[in-house]
């Protein structure tokens, strides 16, 4: 009854009544205030309620905290932040939603010096509102996971539309669902996803995720074309470790034509090169490419092989080759700390003399 009464009071006490503290303080002082015995006890209480899985009771207890003047502001924020995370792990019942909404409006009260000496700028030690927003998104993600886990891999016509409309939080839930779904099931929806991508529907992220899960080359190619660059890069990274060279190579060749993906793809090719002559050959080919040549040089340097160093040196000294190509070959030597490369570099500084290329070779040798 007391709890209910307090809850009712809290409901009419807006978050704004949450008392402001004085200015910024040393971190140690703030922590001392935050970790008093009372707040330790409150946090134990919150964890007990969470362990019972009673979202409404936990929310009600957190609501009381909002206006609990007996707690130091720092201690209250610590407890609120903890409680907010705990609430996010429980089902989003009405009361829990209501309380998180309240907390998400709070301004941080406890500010600490970012640096204890010198530049005096302060940051919040706790930010219950930020934690509340994180928890609210976690609810969205869990709901999406539950909602999509049965739909993924089906040919339901609305699946693609739902995926395209998914918020970022919901995508997290979908990705979690993908991780738990059987690979074969996921591929049932492949035709509709590919068709949607062709029509410009924004489900590249989903294609990339499913490709990484199923190792499906067709989806991976589509993801390279349509996903955001970082999504495609992460997919290539994942597949690079899992697919056989013969399977990953076509994907990498495709990604070399994308300015946002090419550089990283060359590093993935360098990982394959010791066991894949085709990968090595492609790196050399890319050295001649104006856009990708620098990254190809870095990929060759990563191999740090005497053979590569010798070939790079030969290109560098060849006056019949294009100046830019010679420079890229020189770059491969510059970036290679191996003995062979360094030896060639020393020789080049002598043979190229005071030419522009020779000066660059000297700069490299000086490093």
């Amino acid at each position: 009854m007391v709890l209910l009464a307090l809850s009712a009071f809290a409901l009419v006490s807006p978050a704004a009544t949450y008392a402001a503290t004085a200015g910024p303080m040393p971190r140690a002082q703030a922590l001392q205030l935050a970790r008093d015995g009372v707040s330790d006890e409150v946090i134990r209480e919150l964890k007990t309620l969470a362990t019972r899985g009673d979202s409404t009771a936990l929310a009600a207890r957190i609501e009381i905290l909002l206006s609990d003047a007996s707690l130091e502001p720092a201690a209250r924020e610590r407890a609120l932040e903890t409680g907010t995370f705990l609430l996010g792990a429980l089902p989003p019942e009405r009361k829990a939603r209501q309380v998180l909404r309240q907390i998400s409006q709070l301004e941080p009260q406890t500010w600490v010096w970012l640096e204890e000496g010198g530049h005096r700028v302060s940051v919040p030690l706790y930010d219950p509102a930020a934690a509340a927003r994180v928890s609210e998104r976690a609810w969205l993600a869990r709901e999406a996971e539950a909602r999509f886990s049965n739909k993924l891999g089906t040919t339901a016509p609305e699946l693609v539309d739902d995926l395209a409309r998914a918020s970022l939080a919901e995508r997290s839930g979908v990705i979690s669902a993908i991780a738990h779904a059987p690979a074969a099931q996921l591929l049932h929806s492949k035709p509709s996803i590919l068709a949607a991508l062709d029509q410009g529907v924004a489900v590249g992220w989903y294609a990339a995720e499913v490709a990484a899960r199923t190792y499906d080359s067709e989806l991976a190619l589509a993801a390279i074309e349509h996903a955001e660059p970082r999504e495609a890069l992460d997919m290539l990274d994942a597949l690079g470790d899992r697919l056989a060279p013969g399977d990953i190579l076509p994907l990498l060749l495709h990604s070399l034509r994308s300015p946002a993906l090419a550089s990283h793809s060359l590093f993935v090719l360098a990982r394959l090169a010791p066991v894949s002559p085709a990968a090595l050959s492609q790196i050399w080919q890319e050295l001649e490419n104006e856009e990708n040549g620098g990254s190809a040089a870095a990929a060759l340097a990563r191999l740090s092989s005497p053979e590569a160093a010798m070939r790079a040196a030969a290109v560098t000294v060849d006056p019949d080759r294009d100046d830019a190509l010679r420079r890229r070959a020189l770059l491969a030597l510059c970036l290679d700390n191996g003995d062979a490369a360094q030896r060639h570099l020393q020789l080049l500084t002598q043979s190229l003399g005071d030419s522009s290329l020779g000066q660059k070779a000297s700069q490299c040798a000086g490093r």
Partner: protein
Amino acid sequence: MRRALAVLAMLVAGMAAPAAEGACRLNGASISNPDDPSCRDAMFRYVESATTSNDEVTLGYPVPLPLDSLTPVDGFRTYESLKARHQELAVMLDTVEAVPVGQSGMGETIVAYRMGDSDRTTPLGDPEPAVLVNGTIHAREWQSPEVVTGLMEMLALRSADGGIGQYLSDNLNVVILPILNIDGFRQTQRYPERFSADPDQPRDGRMRRKNMRYDGGLVDTDLDNTADNFQGVDLNRNNEHGYGQNNSSSTDPVSLINRGPAIASEPEILALQAAAALAPAGQLRLYVDVHSFSQIYFAPLTGNSRRDELTVQLMQRMRAVTNFKYRDGRSTASGTGNDAIGTTADYFAYEYQVPSWTLELEPLNGGQDYGGTASHGHSGFILPDSEIARVRDEQAQTHLLGFYRQAGPPNVVAVEVRAASDGQVVYRAEWTGNGGRRSLQVSTNMALLPGAQYRLWIAFSKPMRWRDENGEMQPFAGQTVGADSGSARLEFPGQNVASLPLRIDRAAVWNMAPGGAPDGYHRYADDSLSVDFTLPANVAERSAQPVMLVLDNADLSGQKLDADPVTPVSWTNGHWSGFENELGEEGDIGGLDCSISFFAATDANANPPADSPSCKPAAPTSTGGGGGGALLWLLPMLAGFSFVSARPRRAT
């Protein structure tokens, strides 16, 4: 791609215990119980979402992991990739020179990059000024190497753009030291998700701030070998000017702000000084040390009032580029010069009397600014992958403006007048010099005829206007000088003829194509303008009379003209020198340019008048120091102009 989604599915499974808390006893920036295993050996891990573990700290967004890529990505590049990128620029471009400036404690070569053309003089023959940007002095501040590398990429990309980038390449040495604390930075990248030893004052692994040296030895790179995890020197407290002062550093080797055993004891600081010598140091006009976080410019004020004022002005112009979301953090002891704490920004502010600051990049508060958590007030060191590309671009734009401004105020470099009827050049003059005083070389000086039409072409020393990606003239971000700025007029001293305004306040007059006079730019896009005029019919009715061009213009950062191009502008003791207003007074503001005059006569073969007019009054009337009062001269001049210099000029 889970990480790219930038959203968490936190607490999806299991119960949370999200409040990881450490056992270290904090004592300011130090720790009272560094040998206590419960503190020293504690390890934590950043995670996107909270789990049941007590040793995890929730970020609320994907934990950034460094990626191999020479080209910029939505995220953070590995040290090896960044280094390769820097060297790629240096090897491929003659405008980038890589210079080893030192060696880290662990034997890594610290490299500075000098960006700009290979000579050390401007096209006008003056010694090139310089700016110095330092990155990654604090290892965990990953925003810094990305932003500084972004500056290098921007300058390289623009070095032959025919506009502002080429102007900087020709006129400014930009020295960039992208990764100073290599050993510390590599340590953070070895453990991108892990740190020791307390979430409230995290130290080694991803959260290392200091270098890896201590007491003559080196911190081992194994995070789990905890005996030396607290060691290292804070390189930003190891500098002359404020070293050990103002209670802002410590001799305690486990302190986060351990200043090291002596001033400049650390090889990285010596490397920074060597990088400054590339400028060379005497030519420096700006120093920026790029850090994160808290979104602020910490600018030491040295008590040199002109330097301090110019620092604040420059800072304001640069802050305006991002709409003042970065804060003004000038030091509070203005005028006393007593608040230095041994930072690199202190060193350059006091030692070289140049604008100098510590730039703290985003975020303002922490990861919560992007939907994440405060994470004990430290998540700001971990900018989400999804934000860094924007920050890079914003800072590239900001520094483009700052470099442009510090390259020097604009001045008129050439003027030409052509007759509209037949295109004949009737006047042509150019300021020339060879590192000292300049002189106006007048190659053509024929009479302008009353009532006739002419095209006037005026070239400045730098691009004066900015265009967006569509070629439309716009004020540079946050600035005010745009198409409708500036004014020019012809004055007819000694004659009862009203001045003739020239309509230069419109985009159409500015030349964006090469070719020089009469319709192309001089050296850089938008460094010149072309405007038509008709000489009043009632000038020079009785004899040849001077026609004075009066220009009031500002560059795209709002810096006004150096009114006396005879004396090249340079930087001395914290302020501009040789930067005059129209009265000939040196200062930091500039003024109207009246250095160009041609003449009018009814006889096309007439000789020019013996004397040339000037804005300067016949006798000194002002004691102001730094410009201002710019229009006071107009009334006496219009009533009866006093010629103060005599420089006969003859048509060639």
